[in-house]
């Protein structure tokens, strides 16, 4: 087995048995890391694979969350069905944005701004939709959570941990397969030089749309998880641009376009944020804002000196491939 394979197997075992020796707090942190790893991976499909910078990805998380959440809240329909509605809606949104952008030749910064505009528009829109709770938010009814109720996706934190672990693993495997498929090669071509690809006869529109569809579908699932894990949804928070930025921080730091980048990036960022809070508390520097300054400085340093993210540098050191 290759070095990469061994490393992957070791990591998988670690993650699988993590709850056995981790306290509830560490478990909740791990769940958060995996959530961002999964969502970052979903975003990575659009950006890293097809080269389209989406800065409004919170749109899909939000729509997915509200779709499944509303079904549960108003009609008591469980998340397994809500999931499908979420995916359908998000893919629809994604395709509309993609269509509008690609047909009208919008790319780069303009595409990014378009995605921001859609997310903001939706945020304010949801603030005025009373059926979905409006700014007051939607609170999903939480039942006694000791038993594992898979049908309604209710249970102890352990269940959520394994669910998101499964999702992240599936995303990882799925992306690995995608990269090796025909789609993967076309995406690489489009990312490197779209015009050349077109000249060679590649239907760039179709493949870009596919990336958008897959990315938004994956993010929809992330939204559904969010809804049933946190059980309260507020448009101000879930559609906010700071969420969109949170989603992309992982992959950017970890390494865009790589498979392991989003996971590593999410882990580094969450642990860093937590670590800084702890360190500052220990030093007694409990001043508001100081943690985010450190955070920003670290981000700055990574962007300046490790432009391709942490993973490529680390993997080279470790002698692994992707």
């Amino acid at each position, binding site marked *: 087995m290759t070095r990469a394979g061994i490393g992957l197997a070791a990591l998988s075992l670690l993650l699988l048995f993590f709850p056995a020796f981790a306290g509830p707090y560490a478990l909740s942190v791990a769940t958060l890391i995996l959530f961002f790893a999964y969502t970052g991976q979903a975003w990575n499909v659009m950006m890293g694979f097809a080269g389209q910078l989406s800065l409004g990805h919170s749109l899909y998380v939000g729509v997915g969350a509200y779709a499944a959440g509303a079904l549960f809240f108003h009609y008591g329909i469980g998340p397994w069905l809500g999931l499908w509605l979420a995916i359908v809606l998000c893919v629809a949104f994604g395709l509309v944005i993609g269509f509008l952008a690609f047909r009208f030749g*919008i790319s780069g910064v*303009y595409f990014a701004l378009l995605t921001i*505009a859609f997310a903001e528009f939706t945020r304010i829109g949801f603030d005025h939709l009373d059926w979905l709770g409006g700014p007051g938010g939607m609170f999903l009814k939480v039942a006694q959570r000791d038993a594992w109720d898979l049908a309604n996706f209710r249970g102890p934190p352990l269940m959520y941990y394994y669910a998101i672990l499964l999702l992240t693993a599936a995303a990882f495997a799925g992306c690995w397969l995608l990269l090796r498929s025909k789609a993967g090669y076309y995406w690489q071509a489009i990312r490197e030089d779209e015009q050349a690809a077109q000249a060679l006869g590649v239907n760039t529109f179709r493949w870009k749309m596919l990336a958008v569809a897959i990315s938004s579908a994956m993010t929809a699932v992330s939204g559904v998880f969010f809804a049933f894990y946190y059980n309260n949804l507020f448009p101000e928070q879930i559609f906010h641009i700071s969420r969109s930025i949170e989603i992309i921080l992982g992959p950017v730091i970890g390494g865009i376009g790589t498979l392991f980048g989003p996971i590593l990036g999410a882990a580094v960022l969450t642990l860093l944020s937590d670590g800084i809070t702890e360190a500052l508390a220990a030093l007694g520097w409990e001043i508001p804002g*100081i943690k985010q300054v450190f955070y920003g400085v670290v981000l700055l340093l990574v962007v300046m000196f490790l432009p391709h993210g942490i993973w490529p540098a680390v993997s080279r050191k470790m002698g692994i491939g992707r």
Partner: protein
Amino acid sequence: MSFDLVANVVVAGLFTGLVYGLMALGLSVIFGVVRVVNFAHGEMMTIAMYAVTVLFAAWKLDPFFAVLPAAAGFFVFGYLLQAGLINPFITRPEHSQFMLMVAVAIIMVNALLLAFGPDARNVQVDYQLESFEIGKILIDKARLYAALAAVGAAAALFAFFRFTLTGKAIRACADNYLGAKVVGLNVKRYYALTFGLGSACVAVAGCAMVLLVDVTPALGPYYTLLAFVIVIVGGLGSMTGALLGGVLIGVAEALAGLLIAPSAKSMFSFGLLILVLLFRPQGLLGRKS
């Protein structure tokens, strides 16, 4: 819905829009020439606003007198920022530039929070709460003065680009990077100069804005987004476009607030942005690239 109400609202929107326009002008200049997505634009204006409040608190310096020192200071700051930090990123992919400026923005916002705390600050000049009465229309004094400052600054900038040699050189760099280099222009230096100019612009906008709005550290991101909307609607690379875009957004938001729900004002701006991006991406007055 009486005429008075609509007139008052439109006039206020117009003046506010001019100040927005000045802020967007700075971004238009930066974005149009250096092509860097300055996602810390609003944060820079927030810093300028804080600087003005500090000057006011210390020396009772009216924001209008703070204009020159603020502009000078920010020019230097912008120049150094571009030369030191941003220059190597011009050739990097867009998401890298974006992340760089996001990091800078995060540092700025939270450094402000550290320095000034979360409380809102403002300047309380004598004419702060006064208004002129013209018939049934009440014109807020501070707003009027702010708008005049914006127009003045814009005119100065316009003159600079039209009539000075440096201005022409910068425009050349924007129009044709390669050509400018061929002709022997030190493009990197002009980029830094441009960033400095854009920052000075933002500083003046900050002086004007502080008369209209209380400043908190969290103000930055909102204005960054607004600046981008205005620049795109007005047209990249067009200075009159930025001013016009600002006025358009100012009036449109005011009217949307009046006719629809006030809390949905911003929705209108984003909707407008989407439409412009789709149907006229070069903006109202921009050139098709």
